[in-house]
């Protein structure tokens, strides 16, 4: 396991550099490897949106952000991608 971003595990104001670091961590940290999540800021809150394939992955994302960016007000709107069979097909003539 690589320990990324250990140097930034201090309370910091939520600015665009933090936003960029969170976005890159979500992709580049091997414990996450998620490119399909949206990171945005609203006033003093960091908002995560998107879908992941398991509850464990969502929990790990939240744990790592809280560990590496302590003090950040975090809003998590990450869903579990649905895996049911389709109800209908698309007809392409």
């Amino acid at each position, binding site marked *: 396991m690589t320990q990324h971003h250990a140097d930034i595990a201090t309370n910091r104001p939520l600015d665009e550099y933090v936003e960029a670091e969170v976005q890159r961590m979500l992709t580049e940290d091997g414990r996450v490897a998620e490119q399909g999540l949206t990171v945005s800021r609203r006033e003093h809150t960091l908002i995560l949106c998107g879908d992941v394939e398991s509850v464990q992955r969502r929990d790990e994302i939240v744990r790592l952000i809280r560990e590496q960016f302590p003090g950040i007000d975090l809003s998590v709107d990450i869903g579990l991608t*649905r895996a049911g*069979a389709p109800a209908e097909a698309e007809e392409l003539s």
Partner: protein
Amino acid sequence: MIRIAAVGDVHIDKDVVGRYRPALEELPDRADVLLLAGDLTRHGTEDEARCVATEFGGLGVPVIAVLGNHDHQSDQPDAVTRVLTDAGITVLEGTGTVLDCGGTRLGVAGAKGFGGGFAGRCASNFGEPEMKAFVGTTERIADRLGEALRALDCDVKVALTHYSPVPDTLVGEPLEIYPFLGCYQLGRAIDSAGTALALHGHAHHGTERGTTPGGVRVRNVAHPVIKQAYSVYHLLGDDAEESEPGALVHAGQ
């Protein structure tokens, strides 16, 4: 009629194995073939590829895949391909394969594709070596896809990529990252070969439906976009004498 099931960006690892299987077990009643549009794994390891093989192997319909960028993360795309191939999954990269679907020959050509951007707002093969390498990769992969599509001897052609061939199916993603989500060269390759349908993934926040400049239907089948285990597309063609669905006619290199 040919029935094509498709999904991309399933990002399989141990924590996901078994999740898709109930829906996948229904495939023989729903589709003639399953196409996987890349990002099959999280980090492109052999262990994860074995999880993909467990989930998508032995389904009762042929499975054809391309790799995605995640499948290259560990620099072992050949090992990933070998594990999938050993499980009976056909992996395409600048190659094609033909299946007999009830008497109609379905040709599928596939490639991972790459970024680069779209007409008028794209990267150019110019300047620093790194930039030339980037766009050179874009062009080379697209050229091979076009060659593979044109070489298919079949009744109906489908293109399978990970990156998008058009911007239409990226709507919902930030405009600023379009150059990292696909390239117009893939669309040009698809338009060069009389393709009936183009399937891709990669853009999790994109849109399902689009068309190439040449009028080919494009569908983004990334799992978060389709919100189900797979989508099914019925390609309506000439009725032909029934034969065993999914029988392999020819596989490319």
